[in-house]
Each structure stands twice: as C-alpha cells, then as structure tokens.
C-alpha cells in the first residue's frame, strides 16, 4: 500500500511527480473492451445516480404523504426537498422562461442541475475523490440534450423560421449577412454545446488536478522529502484545504451555470425576435 502511494507521488529517481491526464483513465474493472466497460469513475457515476434516486425518492414520498394527508405544513425534510427543487423551478426556470414554458422544460433543467451537482461534488468526497463529470462523456451527453432541446423549442414555436431568425437576424443590412450569418451559425449551433461541455469538463479536470497536486505534494514533502523540505508540506496542505472548499463552490457554480445557460438558450429560441 505504502509502495503504491510512493509510486503515485514519486518518479523512478525519487523526485516529486505531479498528476497526469491518466488520473481520468483509471483501470477498467469489468467488461473491458466492450461499451459497457466499467472503471472507477463509471462506478462513481452509478453510485451518485443511486444516491440521487434514493434522496429524491424519499422527498417524493414525503410530497405524496403530505398530499394524501392534506397536510399543508411541510415537514423539515419535505421543506429541504422543496427548497432544492424550487431553486431550479422558480430560481432558474420561472425566472427566465416564465411559468408556463418554465414548467414545460423543467424536467430537463432539474435533471441537468442535480446530475451535474451530484457528479461534481464527488470530487471532494473522501474515498471517491474525483468528479464523475470530469470525464467528457457526461458533459457531452448533457450538452447534447440541451442542444436538442433548445432547437426543439425553437422549431416547435417558429418552425423553420427559427433557423432564419437565428442565422439572419433582423435589423442587419442584407449585405452584412455574408459576415453575420457564418458568425451566428458558429456561435449558436456549434459553440453553444461545445462550450457547455468543455466548461464543465475543464473546470472539474482542473479542480481535480489542483487537489492532486496539493495533496500529492503534501504526501511527498511529509514522507519522502529530506529535513527542512518537510515543512513545505504544511503550506501545500493549507492550499489543498482551501482548494477543497473552493471546489465545493465550483461544483455548485458549474451546475448552476450549466442549467442557467441551457435555460437562456431555450429562452432565446422561444423569443420572437433575435
């Protein structure tokens, strides 16, 4: 075990070795070579899904119980669920889209918010120690869902006029369409989903690498460095602790940003004029 730890923080000649991109490609545990291959990160994802299912199932049960008993004073546990769900419902969806459209797209927005938050937060949970959203697959799937949804929203409301409105904004002299249309196409139909996915992935990757760097260095300084250098470990530990707190903020913030941007894209697609 100690050899493994040593191998993780030192190279062949006993110097400090920082984390590499291989952090995000742990060994395949099962079904190697098939699309069902499972590694540690995939297992963390399944664990997070299970926990989210249990938590929200319990909340749903408390809603059902309240509604069955006609009890209109929520219990503490029920209130926690209501506050969480209302954060997305009234805080994001109703604020951007209004009540009717907000409720229409609420399932997607709620899913995105709590999935991203749950997958992000594993980055600082001891024993898991890596954000399940730090491998690009999940951000890509969520961004694709957001992409499909905002195009669906626009098509449903405006038909093919949606593309015309997006690519040929009104109020622009027709001659400028030569320049404006490629830019609009790029920003609306390519950069939006790409930035959604990349922003989330890279935030989580960077966060994880920072934490590994700090705590790996702490381990190295305390146990494998000589004499005076051991004291550097205190500094790196303090930094690691601070970045852990920062990662909590980032987890929450990235979930919020992802959800909010999805909502804004839907809102822009629904708007009458672009």
């Amino acid at each position, binding site marked *: 075990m100690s050899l493994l730890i040593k191998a993780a923080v030192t190279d062949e000649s006993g110097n400090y070795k920082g984390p590499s991109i291989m952090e995000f490609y742990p060994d395949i545990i099962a079904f190697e070579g098939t699309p069902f291959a499972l590694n540690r990160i995939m297992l963390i994802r399944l664990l997070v899904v299970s926990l989210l299912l249990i938590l929200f199932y319990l909340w749903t049960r408390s809603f059902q119980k309240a509604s069955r008993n006609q009890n209109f004073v929520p219990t503490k546990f029920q209130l926690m669920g209501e506050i969480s769900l209302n954060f997305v419902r009234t805080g994001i969806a109703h604020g951007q889209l209004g009540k009717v459209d907000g409720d229409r797209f609420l399932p997607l927005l709620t899913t995105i918010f709590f999935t991203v938050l749950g997958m992000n937060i594993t980055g600082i949970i001891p024993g898991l120690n890596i954000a399940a959203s730090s491998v690009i697959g999940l951000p*890509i799937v969520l961004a694709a869902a957001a992409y499909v949804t905002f195009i669906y929203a626009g098509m449903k409301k405006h038909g093919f006029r949606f593309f015309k409105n997006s690519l040929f904004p009104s109020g622009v002299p027709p001659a400028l369409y030569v320049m404006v249309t490629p830019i609009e196409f790029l920003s609306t139909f390519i950069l939006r989903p790409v930035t959604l996915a990349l922003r989330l992935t890279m935030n989580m990757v960077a966060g994880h690498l920072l934490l590994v760097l700090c705590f790996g260095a702490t381990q190295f300084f305390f146990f494998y460095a000589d004499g005076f250098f051991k004291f550097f470990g205190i500094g790196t530990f303090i930094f690691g602790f601070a970045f852990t707190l920062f990662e909590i903020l980032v987890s929450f913030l990235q979930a919020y940003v992802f959800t909010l941007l999805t909502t804004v894209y839907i809102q822009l697609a629904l708007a009458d004029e672009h």
Partner: protein
Amino acid sequence: MISRIIVAAAETEAKNPLLPADYDILWSSVVFAIMLTFFWFKVLPNFKKTLDERTEAIEGRLAAAEKAQAEAAAKTDEISKAQENNRAEASAIREEARAEGAAILAELKEQAQAEAARITQTAKAQIEAERQAALISLRSEVGSMAIDLASKVVSESLKDSATAAKVVDDFLKDIESSKAGN
C-alpha cells in the same frame, strides 16, 4: 517495470480528454436517461401537485376567512342597529314616564290643595261655631255676673268707698279664680 512505463506513456499519448470513450458515452447516457425519467415522471409531478394543493388550500382558507369577516361585520352592523333601536325605545319610555310622573304629581298637588282647602273650610266653620257658642255662653255669663255684681253692690249699699273697692276686687278675684278653676 520499464515495459509498464512504456505502456503507460503510450497510453498517455493515446488519451485525448476531449474525445469520449464509448463506455463513457454509454454510461453517461444511462445516467442521464435514468435521472430524466425519474424527475420527469416521478419527482416533479408529485412536487407540483403538493405545491398546487398548498396554494389552493391557502387561497381557500383566505376566501373562507374573508367570508367570515364579512359575516362578522354584518353581525356587528345588526347588533349596533338593534342597540340604536333599544336606545331610542328606552329614551321614549323614559320620556313617557317623565310625562306620566309630572301628570301624577300635578294631580296629587291638586288633590292636596283641595284637601287643604277642605280642611281649612272645616276648621273655619268649626271655629265660627265655637265662637258663636262662646259668644252665647259669654253673653249669659256676663249677664249673670253683671247682675251678681250689681246685686252685691246694691246689698252693700255702697257703705263707703272702701267697701265698694273691696267689692270690685272680690268680684275680679272671683272671676280670676273661676278662670283658674276652669
């Protein structure tokens, strides 16, 4: 060991964090599908139902409270109107009683006056009668006394003035003693 490092290095070059592995996409889709279905068909409908029912209940209770308030206001109105009526009635009764009292008082006064007049009348009549009687008895007494005096005066035959004076004195004494005797 060296071969492992080489393998690791080769893998490092092969891995591009921007390109998802097939299993990554697959498990991500599974995760997303489960969460979406769960929220869409299980959590959010129940959540909305609870919130709607609560809103409804609060609105219903507000309406009931408003109704109760209106009823209370109507009742208060009714009561104050009844009070007003009672007050008017009471003052009417008081007024009537006062008038009645005044009438009774006047009647009593009149009666008393009549009674007083009657008593005065009777007394006057009695006094008159007594006066008459006294007058009659006096007249007879004075007559007899005068006769007595005269006879005494005559019987003494006026011997001297001293005797005459004594007679008068005796007479007066008689009268006085008879008065005292009375």
